[in-house]
């Protein structure tokens, strides 16, 4: 009964951006693997910048956070110039967010979970697609 649909599209801003539109209420222990696998496949096919459209997601479970974390790490591996020092400094300034993984339109419940689990410091959130694509 797990049926998480992920609709993939390619957009062009300053750089090409892959968009995953998550069609499904929740991401649970059943379906988070699907998101991870899809992200890995996209990265293998050349994706360097990924936007997750969470408009339809009602809440995010720990499995969903696990997938976000994994994808964050996968996309991060691509920027050898980012030293830990840069990241630490950026964190203290409040400026370090992933340049490669961003979120579109999370619900209030999802936003609150990201904040409570400290993910909001690392992931930029946008409210419309155009702004999101242009931000990469």
């Amino acid at each position, binding site marked *: *009964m*797990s049926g998480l649909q992920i609709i993939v599209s390619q957009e062009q801003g300053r750089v090409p951006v892959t968009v995953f539109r998550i069609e499904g*209420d*929740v991401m*649970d*222990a*059943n379906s988070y693997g699907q998101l991870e696998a899809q992200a890995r496949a996209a990265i293998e096919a050349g994706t360097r910048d990924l936007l997750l459209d969470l408009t339809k997601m*009602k*809440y995010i*479970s*720990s*499995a969903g*956070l*696990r997938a976000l*974390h*994994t994808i*964050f*790490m996968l996309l*991060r591996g691509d920027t050898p110039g980012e030293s*830990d020092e840069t*990241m*630490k400094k950026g*964190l203290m300034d409040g400026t*370090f967010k992933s340049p490669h993984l961003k979120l579109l339109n999370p*619900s209030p*419940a999802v936003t*609150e*979970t990201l904040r*409570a*689990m*400290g*993910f909001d*410091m*690392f992931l930029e959130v946008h409210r419309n697609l155009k702004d999101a694509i242009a931000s990469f």
Partner: protein
Amino acid sequence: MTTRYSLQTVAELKNLNQIRDFVEIATTALGFEPDLIPNVQLAVDEVATNVILHGYHGQGGNLEVELERAGSDLVVHLRDEAPPFDPTSVPAPDLTLPLAKRPIGGLGIHLVRQAVDEVFHRVTATGGNELTLVKRDAAGG
């Protein structure tokens, strides 16, 4: 007179959808506001997943999910027959660490604490676990 809604199911990942639907139906039937539902579903989802993966080690087993109203509080009991394990004893993760430095995973019970107001664990008479979640209805029920 207390109305209780009870679901007896098998602790398997494929039943998470059924459990979520049940939580929505029972919460509504007990007269709680709809905005309570996502947080309660999240908490139950997390606990049920832990029972499935860690309690029963993926082998399946009985799981009962029961919802009732206590004044303006929603009370959820999850009962299993897995070896006793108190998830409330798990220490909180260090969320001050940068994402790149944190171990992946381990957030389940912490999410439960964030989603509901109180969490209690006890070992049942048959040697299994009962986890009780309390969610206060801010609207006053």
